[in-house]
């Protein structure tokens, strides 16, 4: 069954590469700051001139769930949210199969970490709340919209 669900979408034209989203995620889920430990992968290279986010899309037919040998990745039938739990052994198969770069690695604790859409947090995803320019949105879209990388000389 296909569940219509709200998703976190990235609007690269508005992203300034500050990594606040990933940092807020790390603080909310782990109590420490470090964008690397957030569930969003912010790709920034100032010389090559890009900044955008790689984030989990909670796929209809999620490859990570299939690939997980421990069975700790799970897609909730009702909400459609794909979550990880602490039985993870850090084999990184989910990281390998994800076509969107949505899985991240906590290399010190040897665990895969992924977006859970802040299902337990009031007010929805903390990344969307913390984004200073509105580059991240949490909404239900009928079809995937192609987001431009540049709209004009200024951002919000």
């Amino acid at each position, binding site marked *: 069954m296909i569940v219509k669900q709200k998703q976190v979408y990235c609007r690269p*034209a508005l992203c*300034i*590469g*500050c*990594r*606040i989203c990933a*940092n*807020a995620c*790390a*603080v*909310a889920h*782990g*109590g*420490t*700051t*470090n964008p*690397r*430990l957030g569930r969003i992968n912010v790709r*920034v*290279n*100032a*010389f090559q*001139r890009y*900044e955008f986010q790689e984030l989990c899309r909670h796929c209809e037919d999620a490859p990570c769930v299939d690939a997980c040998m421990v069975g700790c990745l799970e897609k909730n039938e009702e909400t459609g949210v794909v979550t990880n739990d602490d039985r993870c052994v850090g084999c990184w198969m989910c990281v390998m199969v994800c076509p969107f770069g949505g899985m991240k690695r*906590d*290399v*010190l604790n040897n665990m895969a970490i992924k977006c859970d859409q802040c299902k337990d947090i009031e007010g929805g995803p*903390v990344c969307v*709340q*913390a984004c*200073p*320019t509105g580059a991240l949105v949490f909404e239900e879209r009928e079809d995937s919209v192609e987001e431009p990388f*540049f709209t004009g*000389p*200024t*951002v*919000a």
Partner: protein
Amino acid sequence: MKERPLCNNAVVNLTDRTVDFVEPPEEVLRSFIGGRGLNMHYLYKYLKPQCDPLSPDNVLILGNGILTGTMSPNSGRHNVTCKSPESGIIGDANIGGFLGPEMRFAGVDRLIILGKADRPVYLYVNDGKVEIRDASKYWGLTCSETEARLRYDLGSDVEVEMIGPAGENLVRYACTRYGPKNAAGRCGSGAVWGSKNLKAVVARGNQGLPLANPEGMLNKFNELKDYLKSSKVTQVLGRVGTPLLYDVSNYLGAIRTHNSQQTVFFDTMNAEEVHKYVNKMVGCYGCVVHCRHRNSVGGEGPEYTTEVLLGSNIGVADTRDMIELNNISNELGLDVSSLGTYLAWAVELYEKGYITDKDTGGPLRFGDFETMKKLIYDITYRKGFGDTLAEGSLLVDKYGKETADFLIAIKGLPQSDPHDVRYIKAFALGIATSSRGADHLRSRPTLEILDLPAELTRKVFGQPIDPNPTSYNTKAVVVTVTETILAVADCMGICKFITHCWNSPRNLNYDHFSQLTELATGLKFSKEDLIGVGRRVTDQERLINYQEKGIDRKDDTLPARYFDEPMPSARAKGSHIDREKFAGMLDEYYELHGWDKNGMLPQQRIDELNRLKNLS
């Protein structure tokens, strides 16, 4: 795993190739907090007095503020501190970007670099360790090439701070660089990296930086983000960046033009003209302002400073040409503020006949873009006249004693701010007393010209302030108050664009700082504690300056041109600084600091700083 200390400093000796870790005792930490403050403490501790800045005896310190890398707004900054090869006094500059936070995530809060490596090296900071690695294959590369090669070799997720060819060739105003835009620009720290054979510092941090109160911090961030974003100044800075100030200064007739011989220039540097070349505005770590322009010419910038120092000051009127010079200087790793001042100074000397074709190898003229461009490359690679000019303010009386009066510099450091300070008197006092030379980022007392209501200025400065910018009254108070809070912002690792007193009274003040510090680290600082720290840092810098070069009242002065030549045009016409009244302001300033008539620290303070020095 051992619990992470609040401040973990790595002492790297490049001569012996050793790395030791030291933690500051609690009293030292509470007295200097971090960033610029602790950097000054360690500079005082490790520097061999009166050493040659380009010798292995100099100390290079990269130090994070206490909030750097936390969830505070705009907390991506650290300070690069050394003895300046340009001025011979303290060299200190604040830099944004991502390296500072990354170092903290790697478990190292401060790098104190001593000695000199026998061949080119870079430092690799990862998981609480600092490795000294060979950098022969990166030596000679420009900034973008260095970053690209290091990321190719080590992985695309490392952060790189480096020097360009200018630093390698020991140009005395070479800067420390991160990415295409961020620079610890002033005071020639790049040459110190070069003298130590240090090409880059690379960090990769997988550890989390623990917060004392994560939930509170997240809520505080969201609250402050909305608060700051609703400020008009923040919105405009995010839209057009600092070029917004050009039009204002130009209208006033206070834009440094042709080495401050003129004060009005073309409209081609206005924010809307610059904006035609801007693709996007981007930000540093944790930024809510996003003031960095990604320009279509192929780099980032220009700031207001560059617009004027590589534009009107050397007579280049075409917007695109100016942006190109900005990009070239960034790529080569030069401090644009010093560069633009020296170029303009050389042109004036040529026009007045102090130097001739025999010295320069060809005519120098204001507005000659091609010659200027060539000269920038010649300075970097030390060819011909460029080799001479690369020595910066050491040249000051090489071509005759009176030529020193044409150089817009104080304490051996050229003026960075594009604003001709003859009109705004507080600004004049600010750059004259700034601890690192003629620099606006130490105090920048411009809040009073906004014509704010009297009760607001009283709240900010603690007493009524004369709102007239051309008056000399109470301006010492304005400078002291601004200087102190900016010193604290540097200790915190917070960007000055969101600091109280900088452009807007609405930004983060001491109360915000103490809340944020408590949420992040659990340490409690009252407003009085923080003011005490700001004052202590200023005093510590003064003491180092006295120790290194005998800096006192005679050095807290302005270029002769600001005293003797009235401004030639527009609204500011006729303004100049009156020597007697300036001396009066200086007396008041010293009194507010508790210094004597000669600008010397009281013995009690010297004893305190020496005691702290021996404590850590």
